[in-house]
């Protein structure tokens, strides 16, 4: 599946282009609308370049990362009316870019392997003094995997299936 770019203007360009083989482009339009409604300043980011955009927004920033678009949509739907800005990413490069650009508070992902493949993803997500919390969803409850993830620095391991109330409570408690 083609990946979504973080930049909203770029998303608009892609959304209007006809791409036959992939294409959740209706989703990209809705993501674009969502981001422009909440973060009009992000258009400025596109022209200023990375690192120059500073947000004054006090809302929580949550990044939902999943290579399976269905799972990303599920998490986004379950957290629908929570006061937060959401960004959905489908590739790891996009996730790193989003983390660096938007100083997010929380990363929700089902991709546990990116922390166990020697790529130092956790160091890239948490750069400088900025330490977003990381929640992982997984079917794999083996002791080795859970311990390995906690050693890497994951804040919360959530087994699938998800208890909705518990997830919302935990997300709401993030500052």
């Amino acid at each position, binding site marked *: 599946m083609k990946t979504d770019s973080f930049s909203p203007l770029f998303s608009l360009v892609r959304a209007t282009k006809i791409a*036959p083989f992939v294409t959740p482009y209706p*989703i990209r339009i809705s993501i674009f609308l969502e981001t422009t409604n909440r973060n009009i300043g992000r258009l400025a980011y596109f022209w200023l370049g990375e690192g120059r955009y500073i947000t004054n927004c006090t809302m929580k920033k949550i990044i939902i990362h999943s290579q399976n678009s269905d799972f990303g949509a599920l998490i986004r739907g*379950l957290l629908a009316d929570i006061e937060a800005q959401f960004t959905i990413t489908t590739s790891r490069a996009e996730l790193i870019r989003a983390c660096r650009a938007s100083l997010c508070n929380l990363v929700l992902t089902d991709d546990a392997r990116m922390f166990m493949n020697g790529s130092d993803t956790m160091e890239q997500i948490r750069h400088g003094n900025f330490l977003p919390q990381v929640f992982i969803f997984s079917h794999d409850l083996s002791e080795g995997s859970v311990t390995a993830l906690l050693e890497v620095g994951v804040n919360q391991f959530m087994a699938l299936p998800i*208890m909705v109330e518990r997830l919302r409570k935990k997300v709401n408690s993030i500052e």
Partner: protein
Amino acid sequence: MIVALNEEVALAVALPMIMVLTQTIHSMRRGYRTSATARCIMQIAKLVAVPEEPSDGDIRRLRLRFSSSTLIDAAAFVSEHIYGEALYRLSFIVEECEIDHHLLKSIRRATTRQRRVKLLAKLSQLASVSVAAEYSEGYLDEPEQDIRTYATASLIMAHPERAIRYIARLRHNISLHDAAMFAQLMRRAGAPIAYTPLLTSKSRNLQLIGLYLCEHFSIVDAEPLLQQLCESEDATIAQTALFALCTIQGDITTPQVKRAVERLLPHQRDALIRHMVYSCYSLRSCANLLGREERLRFAQRLNSYKCQIVCN
């Protein structure tokens, strides 16, 4: 003649093009269906996440925007990934949108075995939120094994308290894959699972599920029963019990284990050696089970997990 030549040339060129074109359209439609399913999942998750019941307007919008097959796929995905009170709201949505009704209709209309098995698998995912799963009882006596297996899966999710009865009713021997699937469904459905009745049951299928659970959750209290099952007449049960015993690091110096290991074929003994090393047994504890060459192989394999110490 020129016209005939041109027709054949056109045919030679057009055939591959037609094939590529049809498959392109097929993959475009698949891509669109994937994005539609994701949107539907988001909508259903939004309705399920809030404590209030979905309004009539929300249900109407869902039914108008998405086709029944998309609703089935989305509801099955959501049902598989959540639990708790949200499932009650999901069951309300499933009932109001008549998702189970469409699914049952599709199952009845399915002409091929594969299609029916696929739809029964979907029904098993929706069984916790739909009363339609009870209708799969009619498929328990089908000649096809896969249909019987997935009908049983639906019934387990619908009536978890009767799970053991349904599994014992199966006419065929289930594979380890099916045992793992049933065990996961039973956990998911909240079925009361006790390993003792499963391991002491006369049904081979229930024993296999019990062994899977003991191994998966490292139930050390099950060691005496596992020792007994090592002497089972069924070779699969005996071998699985041996492996489960090693996983929980049980006592392998007993006469039952020794007799069971003697019955194994050479490649099964190799597999057991690998598993014993992986389960951190020492050579001393396994010495009386293995021959001389096997002990050497065990020691070499065990040493290959240890650091190489170089002394100058």
